[in-house]
């Protein structure tokens, strides 16, 4: 009661405010909340205003406003009632009936109309009543003949395809489904079958009915494709839809013959057009989803020729096929098509990004030993697929391929890859339309691997890419620390040294050797480093700077400095600031260590030996250290002075390769 008492004043205030600003909709909302006694007072004022607003909105065809008014008025029909005039009431309720927007609202308003209409115009009253009761779909015989409504006229022609929206009741059982699709086909044609079944029935029916519907769509799709009045792409379009349904149908055996016929039709109708290609691919996809037809679908798909104009969707369909059957031959086809697409895109509007699904697919294929074993049987095919892998291989994919499958590739293919690399080196980078930089880098890495394999020096060692090396630097150092013996440590260092393609990484390896391996070994790989970069002034400069940073025995650094100075003389050319600085410091280091010694003073005649003084007692070690600063050369054998320019731990801060 208290709540009611509280609501009434606020409803009254809202009602009065709405009336003051002549907002009929708000007034109706507030009116609904008024207590009955106040409604009786308000109705005579509000009623005429509502009726005139309705008439006005109807005249102006404001259907949305009328719909809102109908929703408000349905709870207060007394506002439409004209005292003593049922005709006036019907006249006010009529527009709201048609604009109600919902048949529930219309059903509440209908009695206001039919109270008068039933007596005055029984035929119209019956039609309106049937219309409301059947939710807008009464029997045709109950509707009166209106001008322009000829009961014998055929249904209006409708545009075929997706624009078609026919409301046909959903079949409830599989038996009904079969007949309903046949009826649709017979009365409206193939487009209606696809449209009604695909968009109206399939989403709302049970699994059994849906399966029959799909099988029926396949049947009528094939039927439409056989139609002699159709040709080319027009014939293939039904096959596209039919194959889509066939892929999702669970009764594969029921449509097996239809799927085969679909493939035959698609093969026969194939004109390399877009739709024809899609039809064939989808038909093969549908066949691949049936275990009994999978092998034949794979064989056909693996031999597919590219369509006239390859689209990304065509390539994606190959991927979809592969996800069903995992037949790696499809990847080769997809890559061929992708290259064509990419070339076309390059000619038209620039480079095309490789889609993520193609990259991940390539990654999987790169590590698929079974596939590469198969490929290795045919050197030519192996070579072309290898080049295809390179053309879009990600670094990870190529690493995987090298780690697992490189040994499977025959020598001829390896040689061809190397030749291809040489060809590419002489070409302009933009001629081919591919991302040549990455292609070249992958080729380089592969041919580098090929050389290693042929020399046999690293046949059993895992190869690491420079990028991975920088990431694994810490790990390698930890490996060196964890080595049980010097040979093992050397092995780790050598792997690090050989794997690194840049002077900086190689210099780091030498530095680690200086710290952890024997002097002889440090000299060995240090000398190798000098030879390796002898013709590369910048590389030597970077390595020299790197060696200066670390605790490397001076003779090695000196040798490096000399080589750098020689290379600078022999190979003239513009030098970067860093290289010039390195050359200067190499010059000063060499000068410092080759300073001519002052001529020795002539030997004085030997003095007779003085008797030995008795030995003083030895001071403790710590005291000795404090008394005299240690010389760097003390830690090493007498022939190996050390250049110490920085603390050992500072070495780890250098991240770049120069």
């Amino acid at each position: 009661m208290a709540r009611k008492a509280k609501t009434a004043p606020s409803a009254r205030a809202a009602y009065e405010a709405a009336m003051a600003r002549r907002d009929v909709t708000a007034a109706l909302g507030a009116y609904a909340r008024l207590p009955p006694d106040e409604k009786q007072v308000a109705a005579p004022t509000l009623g005429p205003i509502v009726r005139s607003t309705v008439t006005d909105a109807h005249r102006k065809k404001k259907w949305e406003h009328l719909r809102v008014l109908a929703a408000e008025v349905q709870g207060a029909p007394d506002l439409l009632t004209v005292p003593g005039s049922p005709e006036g009431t019907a006249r006010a309720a009529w527009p709201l009936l048609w604009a109600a927007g919902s048949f529930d609202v219309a059903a509440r308003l209908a009695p206001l109309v039919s109270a008068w209409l039933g007596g005055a115009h029984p035929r119209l009253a019956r039609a309106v009543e049937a219309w409301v009761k059947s939710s807008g779909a009464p029997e045709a015989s109950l509707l009166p003949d209106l001008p322009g409504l000829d009961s014998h006229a055929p249904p209006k022609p409708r545009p075929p395809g997706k624009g078609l929206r026919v409301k046909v009741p959903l079949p409830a059982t599989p038996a009904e489904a079969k007949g309903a699709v046949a009826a649709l086909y017979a009365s409206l044609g193939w487009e209606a079958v696809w449209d009604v079944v695909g968009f109206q029935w399939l989403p709302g029916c049970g699994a059994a009915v849906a399966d029959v519907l799909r099988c029926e769509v396949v049947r009528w799709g094939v039927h439409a494709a056989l139609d002699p009045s159709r040709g080319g792409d027009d014939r293939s379009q039904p096959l596209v839809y039919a194959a889509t349904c066939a892929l999702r149908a669970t009764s594969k055996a029921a449509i097996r013959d239809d799927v085969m016929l679909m493939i035959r039709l698609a093969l026969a109708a194939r004109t390399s057009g877009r739709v024809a290609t899609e039809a064939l691919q989808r038909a093969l996809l549908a066949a691949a989803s049936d275990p009994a037809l999978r092998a034949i679908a794979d064989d056909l798909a693996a031999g597919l020729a590219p369509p006239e104009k390859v689209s990304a969707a065509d390539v994606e369909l190959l991927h979809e096929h592969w996800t069903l059957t995992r037949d790696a031959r499809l990847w080769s086809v997809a890559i061929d098509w992708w290259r064509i697409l990419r070339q076309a895109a390059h000619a038209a509007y620039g480079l095309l990004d490789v889609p993520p699904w193609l990259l991940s697919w390539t990654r999987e294929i790169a590590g698929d030993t079974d596939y590469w074993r198969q490929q290795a049987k045919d050197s030519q095919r192996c070579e072309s697929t290898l080049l295809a892998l390179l053309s879009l291989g990600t670094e990870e994919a190529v690493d995987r391929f090298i780690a697992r499958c490189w040994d499977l590739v025959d020598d001829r293919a390896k040689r061809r890859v190397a030749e291809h690399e040489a060809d590419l080196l002489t070409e302009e980078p933009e001629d081919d339309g591919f991302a040549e930089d990455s292609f070249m880098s992958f080729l380089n890495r592969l041919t580098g691997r090929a050389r290693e394999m042929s020399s046999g020096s690293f046949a059993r060692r895992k190869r690491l890419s420079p990028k991975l090396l920088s990431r694994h630097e810490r790990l390698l150092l930890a490996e060196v620390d964890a080595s049980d013996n010097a040979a093992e440590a050397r092995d780790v260092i050598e792997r690090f040294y050989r794997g690194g393609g840049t002077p900086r990484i190689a210099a780091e390896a030498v530095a680690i050797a200086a710290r952890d391996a024997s002097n002889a070994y440090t000299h060995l790989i240090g000398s190798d480093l000098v030879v390796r970069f002898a013709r590369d002034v910048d590389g030597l400069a970077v390595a020299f700077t790197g060696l200066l940073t670390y605790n490397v025995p001076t003779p090695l650094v000196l040798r490096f400095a000399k080589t750098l100075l020689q290379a600078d003389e022999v190979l003239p050319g513009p030098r970067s600031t860093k290289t010039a600085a390195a050359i200067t410091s190499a010059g000063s280091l060499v000068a410092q260590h080759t300073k001519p010694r002052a001529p020795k003073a002539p030997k004085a005649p030997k003095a007779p030996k003085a008797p030995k003084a008795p030995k003083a007692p030895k001071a403790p070690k710590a005291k000795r250290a404090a008394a005299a600063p240690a010389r760097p050369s003390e830690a090493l054998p007498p022939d190996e002075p050390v250049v110490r320019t920085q603390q050992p731990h500072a070495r780890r801060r250098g991240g770049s390769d120069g």
Partner: protein
Amino acid sequence: MAEGPFAVLGIAPTLDLGAVKRAYFAALPRHPPHADPAGFARLRGAYDALQSPTARASLTLSAPLDLAALWAARAAEAELAEARAARVTSVELLRAQERAERFTDVLRALTLDEAVTLVPR
């Protein structure tokens, strides 16, 4: 030119082994082994060739595609007759729907006075 196994059996290419069997046993009385050994051998050869699913599939794919014959065969199927019978129902349904839509479109635009004038009693 040698006839394909499906043609020997007198059936359209199919993957259905049951259909192959039925066709074989239907043709057998026409080529009894004792009376027509050559015909029987041909029939038996075709039947044997179609035993494996892969063979049926590849022979189906390689069989010549006579679109007109296929269309005729399809059109003659019982489903089409069924569709024709169902057509009446379907068209009636559409016609009723069409009329209802038109009825709504016409009447909603009229006032009650105009509607009663338009619709005969």
